[in-house]
């Protein structure tokens, strides 16, 4: 869908105000516009765009020194109500250059700015929470993994640990509780430092990076098709969402049009993944408060959804289903009929369990009023996904960007007003219901035909963008190919990146014993943030 002209005009006015008369906005694809690289293109223009309703999506830095340029920092700004995506960029001479932080005006940039600075060796100034947070404390100071001259195979030097830079909270009776990076239970590593007064959390500092695997680096130089497998492994619970975002990015680079049946099948798989995870989350929430009934029955239901995922793709986590140009396997008619028979059954089962669990007095007493996130915080921090919708902020890629097949099937986002754990649980419950409904409609309206289209050669150094509402929220993947037709740079922004700070915000002044519950209600991915 093209961007409406009045909106383009408004945009042009803002750009001229911020960057001077020479800067122009040019359409760069369906629903996309770009502003050419300019000094201040990031640090001056982005706050202006956010002020007129834009939302910071992803920061994509590229090392173009090999092309005779410097570093280029591109920012994707999303205009949800207009359904438009604007790319702006600012060049830097090279590592060591100064990156002026915009976090003070656009708090949503908090995490990604640090990421860019640490990975590309830019010097971040004016950031309220400077200090290295993402690279491991033993990484030597000059090592910036995403610079192209840094060899992926080169092993990490083990330098003396730099002292952890935590914000300090001091005062009479303030107590510090360090948790992690190794946790009880089988979960990913991350360090949480609580500053508590008695049982109440005054401040929570989150430090990640223990899971840094060099995923983005690994994409470089890989064939396009191989990237799908890498993308599937970005975050284990969002296999399909990430694969789909990557495929969309590459497909937009290659200007392929995907057969309708493949689009429908992808949506089916996306909803299936959402169902399994939302239902699993509901079970985990019940488990955290010791509510055995909910924990066991939601886990059982999650099993059902995983089994159906296996039926559809041969893998319980939907691995290998998505491929460039479409999907790898067609849905056989027998399978479709089985799904059609199964959907109403499982829906009754699920609703029955959820009715008991979410209406139970003792559950409500734990969920309501805990971990409240205000709509203001959601907008400021750029929170996405169910966490945003639970605070009454209508953000849903499926509805905002009118993507197929949701446009045709009448989709509207699920909203809950109060922003507490109960809201997030109810959003999950109702989204699961909506997904079941959507699956029925998808199956009923499934077009016939091919499931895969051939790819053409991608234009070098152009940016393809994949934009998917995964179960955890909006996934943004940018892909660029080199002149050899191989991947040159892939950048993925998992929803967790935006939401971790939301968690820190939501738990403030809550009881420390309620933290695991709040944490589970966001259920963020460590792996997705530590690329």
């Amino acid at each position, binding site marked *: 869908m093209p961007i409406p002209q009045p909106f383009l005009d408004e945009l042009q006015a803002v750009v001229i105000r911020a960057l001077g008369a020479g800067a122009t906005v040019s359409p760069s694809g369906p629903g996309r516009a770009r502003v050419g690289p300019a000094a201040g293109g990031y640090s001056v223009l982005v706050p202006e765009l956010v002020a007129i309703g834009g939302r910071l999506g992803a920061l994509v830095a590229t090392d173009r020194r090999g092309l005779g340029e410097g570093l280029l920092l591109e920012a994707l700004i999303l205009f949800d109500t207009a359904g438009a995506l604007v790319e702006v960029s600012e060049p830097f001479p090279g590592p060591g250059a100064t990156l002026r932080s915009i976090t003070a005006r656009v708090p949503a940039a908090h995490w990604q700015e640090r990421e860019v600075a640490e990975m590309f060796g830019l010097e971040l100034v004016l950031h309220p929470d400077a200090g290295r947070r993402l690279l491991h404390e033993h990484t030597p100071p000059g090592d910036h993994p995403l610079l192209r001259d840094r060899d992926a195979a080169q092993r990490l030097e083990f330098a003396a640990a730099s002292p952890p830079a935590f914000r300090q909270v001091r005062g009479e009776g303030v107590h510090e509780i360090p948790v992690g990076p190794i946790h009880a239970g089988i979960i990913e590593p991350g360090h949480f430092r609580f500053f508590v007064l008695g049982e109440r959390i005054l401040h929570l500092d989150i430090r990640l990076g223990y899971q840094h695997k060099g995923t983005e680096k690994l994409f470089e130089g890989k064939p396009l098709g191989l990237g799908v497998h890498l993308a599937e492994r970005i975050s284990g619970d969002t296999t399909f969402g990430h694969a789909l975002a990557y495929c969309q990015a590459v497909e937009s680079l290659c200007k392929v049009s995907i057969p309708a049946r493949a689009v429908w099948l992808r949506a089916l798989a996306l909803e299936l993944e959402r169902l399994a995870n939302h239902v699993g989350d509901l079970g985990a929430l019940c488990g955290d408060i010791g509510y055995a009934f909910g924990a066991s029955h939601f886990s059982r239901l999650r099993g059902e959804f995983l089994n159906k995922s296996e039926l559809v793709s041969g893998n319980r986590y939907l691995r290998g289903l998505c491929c460039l140009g479409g999907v790898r396997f067609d849905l056989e008619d027998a399978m479709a009929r089985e799904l059609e028979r199964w959907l109403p059954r499982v829906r009754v089962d699920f609703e029955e369990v959820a009715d008991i669990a979410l209406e139970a*007095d003792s559950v*409500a*007493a734990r969920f*309501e*009023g805990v971990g409240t996130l205000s709509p203001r915080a959601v907008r400021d921090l750029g929170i996405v996904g169910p966490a945003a919708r639970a605070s009454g902020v209508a953000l849903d890629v499926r509805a905002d960007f009118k993507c197929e097949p949701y446009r045709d099937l009448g989709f509207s986002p699920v909203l809950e007003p109060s922003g507490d754990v109960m809201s997030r649980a109810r959003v999950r419950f109702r989204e699961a219901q909506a997904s079941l409904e959507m699956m029925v409609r998808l199956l009923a309206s499934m077009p016939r035909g091919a499931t895969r289209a051939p790819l053409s050669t991608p234009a070098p150094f152009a940016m393809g963008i994949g934009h998917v509402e995964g179960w955890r929220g909006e996934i943004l993947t940018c892909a660029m190919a080199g002149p050899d037709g191989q991947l040159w740079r892939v950048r993925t922004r998992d929803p967790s990146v935006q939401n971790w700070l939301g968690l820190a915000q939501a738990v403030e002044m809550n009881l420390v014993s309620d933290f695991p519950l709040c944490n589970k209600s966001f259920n963020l991915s460590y792996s997705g943030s530590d690329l």
Partner: protein
Amino acid sequence: MDTHTFSRLVELTSYSVLLVAVAVVAQRNLATSIRLLRLEGFLLAMVSAVIGLYTGESHLFWVAAITFVIKGLAIPSFFFHVMHRIGLPHDAERSLTVPLGLMLASGLTLVAYHVGRPLALASPWITRDVLASSLGTAFIGLSLMIVCRKALTQMLGFLLMEDGIFLFGITETYGMPLLVELGIFFDLIVAAGVTGILLLRMGGDFGHVDVDRLSDLRG
């Protein structure tokens, strides 16, 4: 039924009524409170039936049946309905913390004992010890109504108070004349209806049922 068994049975039930009243104070969940109120209704119906068995007064069985239907079934269901219509959070904050409320409740029961003690000594009835627990229940309801500035909690307090008075009446007099009992039940139903309507209108007009925030009228 011999006198001793009878009096112990009535006493046990009346203490259970008091205990349930204390439990209503002890927790903040509205739905559970209403369920406890339903339990209270059943207990009261039981007391009436037991007294009926003992005295052989047939009208007490009617009273028991009506109590069962109205206090045990109708009013709780009605308030569940109202609660769902207003769509309140399950957990109603009270203006008083629970431990303080319970201290108040214990204190009020002590007062009830001291008010009731001379009467109980003068009373020729077997069930005289019940006086304190029934007045205690009524006082606890009263304290909920006065101290808690939330409309639904006030309504709970009102119903608890009615229950306490009912227990007082049935155990002190072995049943008022049926006509009067009917009248009292009628008033109770109308009162429940009126509160329901007021609550619904408050929920509709103000979006909350917090009496503390209704403060236009002063002086």
